[in-house]
C-alpha cells in the first residue's frame, strides 16, 4: 500500500534520511526502530508532508504522492499521531476529537466516528468536556490516537506512543493498537522501545544514521546481532 523509494530528506539543506526505501503492505503493522536522531521522526514527517524530500519517491496505492501537500495527505488517510501527543491543551476532549475529523474526507462521518472512538476509549467519554491540557499523559495518548482515528486513517503512523507513559498505560495502549490492527488498520509504529515493538510488529526496519540497516520479520530482527549494535552504537 505504501512504498518509499530512495528517500533523501532533511532540514535546511542538511539530509537526515540518506536514501531510505521501505514497503508497508495493507493491514500490516510495521515497526520502525532506531536510536535517537536516526531519522525516524524525519521519515514520519516526510510521509505526513511536513518535510519536503530532496529526492526520492513516495507511493500510496501505486500513486505518486511525493508532491502532495500535508492537507491532501491527511485527506488520503495518511495520519500521524505525533511524538508528545500534541493535543490542543485549551480545548476539551470533545473539541480535540471534532478537530481530528475536520478534514474533508472524514467530515461527513464525524458523528459516527466519534461514537466508535468513545467506545474504544471509554475513559475519554468520562472526560469528554475536560480540557485536554489537564489530562494525564496516558489519557492524552488515548486522545491523540482517537483523534487520529477520527481523521479516517488508512495508514496510522504512531511516533513514540510509549514515551513518558507508565508501564500499565503502555500495555493498554498497545493492546488497543493490536485491536486496531485486528480490525484491518495499517499501522506504522515508530518506537525506541525495542522489546515492545518486536512483540507487536509483524515486520521491522532498523534505521541508523539515515540508512535502513536491517529489515525483516520481527523474530529475524530480534535475533540479528546487528540490531543491538545499531541501537547501542557498539
Amino acid at each position, binding site marked *: 500500500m505504501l512504498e518509499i523509494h530512495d528517500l533523501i530528506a532533511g532540514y535546511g539543506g542538511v539530509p537526515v534520511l540518506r536514501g531510505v526505501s521501505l514497503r508497508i503492505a495493507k493491514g500490516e503493522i510495521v515497526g520502525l526502530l532506531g536510536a535517537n536522531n536516526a531519522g525516524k521522526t524525519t521519515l514520519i514527517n516526510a510521509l505526513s508532508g511536513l518535510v519536503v524530500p530532496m529526492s526520492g519517491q513516495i507511493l500510496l496505492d501505486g500513486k505518486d504522492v511525493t508532491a502532495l501537500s*500535508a492537507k491532501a495527505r491527511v485527506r488520503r488517510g495518511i*495520519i500521524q499521531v505525533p511524538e508528545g501527543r500534541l*493535543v490542543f*491543551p485549551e*480545548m476539551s476532549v470533545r473539541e480535540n476529537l471534532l478537530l481530528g475529523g475536520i478534514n474533508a474526507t472524514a467530515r461527513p462521518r464525524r458523528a459516527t466516528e466519534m461514537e466508535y472512538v468513545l467506545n474504544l476509549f471509554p475513559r475519554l467519554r468520562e472526560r469528554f468536556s475536560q480540557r485536554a491540557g489537564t489530562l494525564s499523559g496516558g489519557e492524552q495518548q488515548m486522545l491523540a490516537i482517537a483523534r487520529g482515528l477520527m481523521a479516517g486513517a488508512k495508514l496510522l503512523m504512531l511516533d513514540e506512543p510509549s514515551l513518558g507513559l507508565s508501564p500499565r498505560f503502555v500495555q493498554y495502549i498497545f493492546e488497543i493498537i493490536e485491536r486496531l490492527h485486528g480490525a484491518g488498520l495499517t499501522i506504522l509504529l515508530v518506537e525506541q522501545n525495542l522489546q515492545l515493538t518486536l512483540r507487536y510488529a509483524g515486520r521491522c526496519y532498523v534505521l541508523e544514521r539515515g540508512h535502513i540497516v536491517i529489515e525483516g520479520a520481527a523474530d529475524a530482527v530480534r535475533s540479528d546481532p546487528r540490531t543491538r549494535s545499531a541501537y547501542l552504537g557498539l
Partner: protein
Amino acid sequence: MDELLQALVEGLLIGSTYGLVALGMGLVYGVSGVVNFAHGDFILLGMYVCLALYSAFALDPYVSLIVTLPVMTLVGALVYRFLIRPIADQHLLMVVQLTLGLALVIQNGVLMLFGGQPQRTPSIVEAKLFVVGDVVLRGPQVIAAVISFALAGVLFVILRSTDIGRSIRAVHQNARAAALMGIDVGQVQTITFAMGIGIVAVAAALLSPGASIQPSDGLRYTVTTLLVIVLGGMTDFAGIMLGGLIIGCAEALGTVYLSETLGTLLPYAIFVLIMLFRPRGLSWGTG
C-alpha cells in the same frame, strides 16, 4: 457627579469598539504572531471610504458597509497572502516594519486623495439623542456600542462552535498539530487576517458618523489598539474586551478631568501600571 457618570458611560461605549478592533488584532497575533502596525491606518482607510461613498452616492456610513465590508475583507486577504505571508516565517520584526511601510502608504494615499484638512461624514442618526437619567448619549455612540458587543458575541460563537473557529484556535494553540489534522495553516492565517480587516471595516463605519478625521489619525488608532490588546493579554477574549472598556474610560475621564496634555497621558499611565503589576495583563486563562 453627572460629569463623571457621563464620561464613564461614553468611555464604556467607545471602549466596546476599541475592544472589538483589538479582538481582530489579537486573533491575527494568536494565529500568525504578526502585529499589524497598520491596523489603525486600515481603520482610517475605512472611514475615508465611508466619506467617499457619502460624497459620491450620499450613502449613510452604516449603509455603505454593504460595500466596504466585503471589499476591505478581500483587500485584507490579498495583503496577507501576498505581502505578509512570504515574510512571516522570517524575523517577525521585519513583518512589523512591512506593516509600517503599509501604514505610510495608506496614510499618504489617503492624504493625496482627500487632502490633509479634517473632514467628517454625517449620518442621519447623528442628531438622535438617548437620555438615560442624567446621562445624554448620542445616537452613533449607542449604535456603535450595541453593534460592537453584538459582533464580539458573534465572533465568540464562531470561535467556540464552528469548524473554522476551532481551526483558528487550533492553529493558535499548536500549529504543527493543526497541520497534522489536515488544517491548511497558511489559509487559516489568511482568513483570520481578512476577518481582522473586516472587523476594522465595521468599526470604521461605527466610528465615522460625525467624527472628524485626518490622515494622521491612523497611528493614534494603532497605538490605542496595541494598548488594549497587550492589556488584554494578547489573545484572551474577555481580557481584550475588558481592556477596551478600560482604555475607553481612561481616555474619556482623562479629557474631562485633566488638562489637555495630562488627559492624553492617562491611558498610558493606566496601561503602564497594569502591565507592571500584572505582566500577563487582564487575561484569566487563554482564548
